[in-house]
């Protein structure tokens, strides 16, 4: 479970907080999609859950562990897939997966890792090729395989389908849905309203560091979501 309690971040020299008293809960088996324009505080939220930055106030909890107090323990329970999954170009997809699995403290035999790459949708002929030749979508799939290998309880995604072709984006959405059904808590930051509607169980819209609105995915249609988003966007501007 992911939980933000009055989570606040003000960067040095900034006039207002990038994130202002954010409160949200993402229980197991839920996909919470955060929408919002650039500068709304979405990526700041992700960075706080990963403790890449320190909160000014409040807490980011991963399964009850405060990420600021014990970042390694919190990170061990959560997987992170950014817009561009950064891997080691000289290593193959399988070697990258093996490496990230090992350093996370997990153990998995080679056959399992191969199965995970396949499960994440990476073509088998790419397993042993250096990652430097991978497309963005292929890298995302290795990122998912890493999350699967680690058997984490929560997943944080930052613009995961940005730049993916429609087929790859659709495959990715299906993958997220399967993870959700598997009981994973997913926090996804995206600009993509359709992806949010497709994957999310809850959808939040952020503006100027605040969580302005929260909808149940079943409570709003595409058009209503777009209208609410544009309305908030216009007000924020």
């Amino acid at each position, binding site marked *: 479970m992911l939980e933000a309690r009055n989570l606040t971040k003000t960067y040095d020299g900034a006039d207002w907080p990038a994130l202002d008293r954010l409160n949200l809960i993402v229980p197991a088996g839920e996909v919470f999609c955060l929408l919002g324009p650039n500068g709304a505080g979405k990526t700041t939220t992700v960075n706080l859950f990963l403790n890449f930055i320190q909160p000014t106030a409040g807490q980011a909890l991963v399964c009850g562990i405060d990420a600021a107090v014990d970042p390694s323990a919190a990170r061990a329970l959560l997987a992170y897939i950014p817009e561009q999954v950064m891997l080691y170009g*000289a290593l193959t997809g399988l070697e990258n997966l093996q490496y990230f699995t090992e350093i996370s*403290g997990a153990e998995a035999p080679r056959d399992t890792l191969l199965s995970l790459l396949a*499960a994440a949708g990476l073509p088998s002929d790419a397993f042993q090729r250096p990652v430097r030749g991978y497309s963005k979508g292929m890298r995302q799939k290795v990122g998912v395989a890493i999350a699967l290998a680690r058997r984490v309880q929560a997943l944080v995604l930052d613009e995961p389908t940005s730049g993916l072709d429609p087929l790859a984006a659709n495959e990715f959405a299906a993958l997220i849905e399967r993870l959700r059904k598997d009981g994973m808590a997913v926090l996804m930051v995206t600009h993509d309203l359709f992806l949010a509607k497709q994957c999310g169980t809850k959808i939040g819209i952020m503006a100027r560091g605040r969580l302005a609105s929260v909808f149940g995915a079943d409570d709003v249609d595409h058009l209503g979501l777009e209208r609410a988003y544009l309305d908030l966007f216009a007000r924020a501007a």
Partner: protein
Amino acid sequence: MSDLALAPLAVAAPAKSRWRVMRAVAAKEWLELFRDRRLVWLCAFVVALMLAALAFGYVESARILSEREAAARADRELWVGQSAKNPHAAAHFGQYAFKPLSPLALADPGVDAYVGSAVWLEAHKQNETQFKQARDGGVGARLGALSLAFILQTIAPLIVILMGFASFSGERESGTLKQLLSVGARPRDILAGKALALIGAIFALLAPAFIGAALALFFFVDRERLSLVDQFIRLGVLGAAYAAYLAGFAFLSLGVSALARNSRAALVTLLAFWLANSFLAPRLATDAARAFAPTPTWQEFRAGIAQDKAKTFGHDESHPGFVAFRDETLKKYGVTRIEDLPVNFRGLALRKDDESGYAIFDRHFGALQTAFDRQDALRAAPGFLFPLLALRPISMAFAGVDSRSQFDFASGAEAHRRDIQNEVSDNIIHFAHDNTYLAGPELWRKIAAFAYRAPGAGFALGYSLLPTAALVGWLAIAAVFALFAARRLRPV
């Protein structure tokens, strides 16, 4: 898409997990290093350079050894081939004492090239050619001599820096650091893994040189004169010292890389330190040591001895000291004339004058060596910050080519000179009945050839405590700095 419902994965226990993390990071670093052909070629080039320097050192050492042995044989032949003459004239004829070449000079030539290797032994005078000021020459003065020590002291740290400067900053720039930390790996475990990889690379760099030096020693060491075990102990200490020196650079590179804004800043910072350590610090430390512990110039040193020697009588029979000694001797033997003495008075006077000289030489040369020791200590003290200042004296000491080894050789040569003086004076005392007395080849042969045995590794250890402490300090400070930097490691 395949089914995701996979069997739960076993999770390693924490202690085991930490070791696995370190091992995994080290293995990944090695794999990347190996696949980056540029670094592989660079390392191969440095290894080739080291082996070439070692081979050159071996050939050069063999040549020098052969020349010294030939010169020592020729000098001995000259000595024993002297015609019949007064023994004191033979003492003035003199002979050379050649310093046997330390086998490890093939790796580190030290000060040998600057202080000379032969001492001229003659009556009344302890020669000091072994104390030339060239011993204080900075590393720049040695650029012309591409020894294994020079490569390890100057070029190897540069290779370590090139391997390590982007360890963290490069990962931060490429985004992999964010990915790495996001999986829960602890920065200190990542640091340990990267350090393990870098130190492993250092051992891989050192191993060929170490094995090459061991083989060279095996074939080079004259086992009748030197202990092979002692030479291998020395080599082991040298290996450990160089490993500590380079491991410190590994930690420094990792620490700077973790703190720097980007790889370029890390590289510039590390190169600036490398320049300061390799070239600036030795020069400044030498100048500071000279300023705080000055040594006399050759002229001043010689003038000081001459001043004290003037108080002794030498060959001056009108000197008050000579007159007093004559009167004292006559009184001791209960006679009134020199001609009535049962022994040769001239021999007694020579021995007395020599003994007076010994005390003067011991005082002046001892003071000079004390000053050099103070300079050495001042130079080595900042070694915990600029480790070349600590490593170089250790390297020279255990290679047997430092000023202390030179002093020990000079002391041995002086002891031999005194043996010669005592022998010829005794011969005159007991066998010369008048000034026409001549000794023959049997006396020249009776005086043994100079046979210096260099002290063991314990001798070098005894006076290397300060630089050793400085080197250990350097390693500890670099490791603590790297840990500190790892604690502050941020992915963005």
